[in-house]
């Protein structure tokens, strides 16, 4: 089964479970959690169910397209259910069955993973779901987002789409993964993957990036003063991505790292608080 068929099956499955089918965000994000559907969806009292594909950009994870399992860009299928149904584990397993995975012939495990996004001030408890030793999904009960205690709680499911597709398709290398209609991953992503690695690790202009990081940070502050929460949040996301590029570029020392993460978290917290204030 091709990548796109897997995607479509997931969309249909979650649509039937009452999710709206959302869309990926317009700025670069490191994870589907950054998408406003999840960040703002998890805040507040409103019940919400949403599912969407997200392009995750993680510059540091690039391997110049040499490692068939690690790339600086991949795709997640993200589901947010608020509040979580009590049979959620079962529903999740059924979503795998729906993809044609014969659960009984595999070793499926829920291995503790206390998830945290230091930049978003978000954390939750849950698991990595393992299928034959491979992590295929992150399963998290959010407890806080933007430093705010959540009530009701949301459950977040994040499927690693390429990994699951490779597994279903029975290929060892992502290069040979069929995207759809006879077009393969390598046809679409091989060159971009390599070029982005060169950019992230070698070419990214450090001064320029530090400069815009600082400007974005100021912009968040300015926009929040005008109660423009969503535009402000967009600049939080942008600074987070810039930080990731600088980090991959080796421009941020181990000790400084914490400091930058803290700066982004502060922004995310302020946005969450502003949203909360507006909705209380």
């Amino acid at each position: 089964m091709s990548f796109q068929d897997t995607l479509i099956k997931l969309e249909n499955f979650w649509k039937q479970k009452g999710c709206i089918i959302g869309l990926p965000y317009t700025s670069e994000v490191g994870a589907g959690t950054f998408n406003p559907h999840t960040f703002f969806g998890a805040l507040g009292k409103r019940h919400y169910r949403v599912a969407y594909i997200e392009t995750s950009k993680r510059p540091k994870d690039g391997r110049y397209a040499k490692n068939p399992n690690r790339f600086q860009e991949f795709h997640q299928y993200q589901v947010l259910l608020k509040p979580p149904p009590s049979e959620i584990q079962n529903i999740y397993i059924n979503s795998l069955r729906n993809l044609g995975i014969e659960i009984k012939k595999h070793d499926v495990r829920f291995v503790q993973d206390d998830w945290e996004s230091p930049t978003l001030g978000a954390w939750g408890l849950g698991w990595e779901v393992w299928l034959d030793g491979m992590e295929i999904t992150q399963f998290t009960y959010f407890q806080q987002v933007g430093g705010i205690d959540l009530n009701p709680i949301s459950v977040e499911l994040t499927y690693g789409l390429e990994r699951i597709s490779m597994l279903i398709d029975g290929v060892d290398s992502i290069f040979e993964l069929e995207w759809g209609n006879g077009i393969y991953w390598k046809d679409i992503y091989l060159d971009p993957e390599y070029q982005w690695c060169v950019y992230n690790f070698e070419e990214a202009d450090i001064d320029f990036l530090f400069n815009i990081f600082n400007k974005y940070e100021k912009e968040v502050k300015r926009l929040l003063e005008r109660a423009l929460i969503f535009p402000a949040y967009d600049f939080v996301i942008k600074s987070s991505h810039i930080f990731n590029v600088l980090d991959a570029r080796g421009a941020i020392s181990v000790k400084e790292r914490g400091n930058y993460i803290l700066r982004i978290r502060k922004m995310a917290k302020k946005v969450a608080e502003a949203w909360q204030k507006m909705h209380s």
Partner: protein
Amino acid sequence: MAKNALIEIGTEELPASYVEEASSSFSAIFKNFLETNLLHFSSIDYYYTPRRIALIIKGLQEKQKDRIIEIKGPPEKFAKIDGKWSKQVLAFAHSRGILIKDLSIKKSKKGSFVFGKKIEKGRKTKDLIKKSLEEIIKKIPFPRYMRWEKTGFNFARPIRWLVVIMGKEVISVSIAGVKSGKFTRGHSFLSTRKKLEVTPENYTKILEKEYVIVDQHKRKSTIEKMIKKEASNLGGKALIPNDLLLEVTNLVEYPRSITGKLSEDFLSLPPDVVMTAMESHQRYFPIQKNNRLLPYFIAIINTKPNKKIIKGNEGVLVSRLDDAKFYFEEDRKISLKERFNKLDEITFQEGLGTMKDKVNRMLELASELKKYIGFKNYVVREGIKLSKTDLTTLMIRDGKEFTNLEGKIGYYYAVDEGIPNDIAMVIYEHYLPRFSGDNLPKTIEGAVVGILDRLDSIVASFIRGFKPTGSKDPMGVRRLANGLIEIVLKFKFSIPLEKILNYAGKLFTKNFDSSEVAEFFKDRIARVFETNGIPYDIVRAIVAVDISDLSFSLEKARVLKEWKEQNIDEYKRLIIGQKRVANILKGFSKKSFPQVELFIEKTEKDLFAKTVDLEKKLQTFLKEKNSRKILTNLLSLIPTIDKFFDDVLVMTDDKKIRENRLSLLKYVREQFLKYGDLSLIVIEGGE
């Protein structure tokens, strides 16, 4: 009649590291509940898997025994009117359900009162459980809690079912929105039975049929056997660290083993890298033959094995090792020596320069330390230069599992580059001990660089204002200090610690004042000695005067402690005497030696002569570091000191004589201070 009871909390997968502690506590809390309610039982056992925590209570009494209780009523003065019970008393009896014939007047501590006796009916066990179970479950301790449903219940993971049975009867409760019943659940995927009715008697058996080994001991021993068998099939020996075995035991309900194969290529990686990839992330067991890794691994899975599962697990490990190989190959393009210059790209601590600055400070400190300790200078200096270079490698900068291999990676790369083994060893050993109870360095040079590194980091943290307070220790300074002290003790180094701390601080800033960090060290030393069984106050007394020779300090503390245990009265006398001397000398700051011609009483002449004699003897014993002899000789002076206080009035009006007497006491005190400031010791029961 007694019955058996079963309580099972069914959950989504609990973290492997939580379940043992949680289950044993649950059992202890429940036992305590039964005992406080005077409910007898013959045994209580706990069981757990990742998806359940269960208690089986055998021979549990069905209800409490009836008891006669006495209730206090009005005071005697309101008790009777004309020899009859007053209205007040009757009202009391009525409201409490006490019969008139059971009223009497009794004396209590607070005076005489009316008391009424009545029989309190024993309550049913099931009612007591029903009432208390939620509170009991709330008390189960976990490292972290979560919320997931609308009652806001806190638990480690969501509770999805509850079995609460006594005999055959369900005790109905509702916890976190889940109603209790008599149905458990089998293995998530292998069990086909939807409604699995259990009793306390058949619980473990029924579950076993449904692919759940609920008895953790049985699960653990089964797994251990499986691993050993898989390894011996390959003619090798599995490495089975106990914590990994326990973790794996708590990750599965239905353990089965598989053996996966790896390409031999990966064995060219440092073995620690391969083992870390296997153990720390995938929870696989490596196999060795003749002390070399075999290209295989053993995995414990939670279902029946098949080829697909083996292949899947192999693929995952390969992708991790591919990553390690990518790091390894990239790293090898730049030698460690070249990496020395890259150290200035890594910040040490904010505002305190780079790792290169740190290494340079360590080099300067090494020259200073050389004055006090004998070591191979070349090895130490080259070792220092390389000690941090692996921080610039991709393997360590990975930020995930391989980061824990700092020091080890440096060691492997160094050996690989042909750097002599004793220098390579410094890179690895200077990180030891990494945690409490870890191995200590074996080579002097490793130990020395470990000390220098720690001194620098500790002083740096104090300069930045990150000194540890209460539960806060953001830079892990306490652990660093403990490590340093353990190394010094192991190698019996004599280092003038205060001086060296001062020197280390001056490398950062000219205005460095070492008193705060020295005080911190004294506290740490006392804590480390405490783990050697020495009371905190004794160590504090001994390190208060000198921290330049910790082995000697530890010995002195030990000798004093042993003597104390056999001579507690004399010990008290010694300490009280020292406190007296210290008190009387408070505010006396004259630097004068007692003058013989100013002595009047025989006792003071006597004390002086004996102290002069003592000082001479102490000189020899201090050189020999003979704590026992020093102590015995000091003790021999006590009767004379006591007599001095009995016979001589120190605070006499004559200033000259008074000051001479104080000088004498100061001279005496100076001798005792050679052992420690014993006046700081706490005497129980006052002074």
